């Protein structure tokens, strides 16, 4: 049990430190135009990376293709139909659950 509390404590301290580096190092200086052009693209690159990672990550790492792909497709279809956010997320969970139930 000590090990688990160690994980919680070190992850907390480490995450605080990681998040503090940028604000402390850069202060209030305004980045150059070129830097701004890069910064503007971090969010789309990061979000696409997270989508791929969370859709295909296996239990112990590696790649696993399963019902989550169907859930993501259902979410994209619901988003294309301009459904509200909660409906899109429910569509993703329901489609994934349905595929797992019949598989």
């Amino acid at each position, binding site marked *: 049990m000590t*090990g*688990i509390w160690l*994980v*919680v404590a*070190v*992850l*907390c301290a*480490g*995450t*605080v430190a*990681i*998040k*503090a*580096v*940028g*604000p*402390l*190092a*850069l*202060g*209030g200086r305004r*980045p150059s135009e070129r*830097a*701004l*052009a*890069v*910064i*503007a*693209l*971090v969010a*789309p*690159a*990061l*979000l*696409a*990376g*997270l*989508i*791929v990672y*969370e*859709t*295909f990550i296996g239990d*112990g790492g*590696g*790649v696993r293709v399963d*019902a*989550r792909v169907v*859930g*993501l497709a*259902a*979410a994209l279809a619901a988003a294309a139909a301009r459904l509200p956010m*909660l409906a*899109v*997320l429910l*569509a*993703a*969970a329901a489609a*994934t*659950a349905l595929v*797992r139930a019949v598989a």
Partner: protein
Amino acid sequence: MTQVSTTTSTLRQGVRAGLPLVAPTFALGASFGVLAEPVMGAAAPIVMSLVVFAGGAQFAALSVLAAGGVAGSAIAAGLLMNTRFLPMGFAVAPALSGPPIARAAQGQALVDASFALANRGDGSFDRGVLLGATLPQLVAWTTGTVAGVVGGGLLGDPQALGLDAIFPAFYALLLLEEIRGRRAAAAAVLGGAIVLALMPFAPAGVPVLAATAAALIGLARP
């Protein structure tokens, strides 16, 4: 490029911007609680959600512990998962204000969804949204974890309910808002491709950190 906006939202407006995130964040917190309770006990997952407050890192550390890994491996997996907050911290730094300690404190509000919502698309960030939108997510993530730890037996298997599909669907919605031009679309495609290429062999966290490098296409001349 979109017009540069200089208006900053109030904290209250930021909180309101974060309200649609409450339900999905609660569901994710609940699935973390359900999965973590048998491995970590009742208290540790709840405290972890409150003080670490990083879904990706918590799931990564939990999967190591669940597989019988030692504390050091779980810490490494969790911290690697959070290394993406380094480039993100540099990105939002100019939007923060006050003395260094205040800036470092405001930087703690950095989470994926708030980062995306606060991003104006021109390289600048809305401080009110960055700080405000994080508050409802922290409440929802922590109370969701409590619900999962306490009610895990009633909820059943989170995978059977498809709860693990909510995360990617949620990020897809945020991404659709972010794709404001050809360059953003190209960065997204490249970021996704980097992750897919690295996932089969790289340790947890490295693929997503590497995906942020796709933003370097912003250096190319238009």
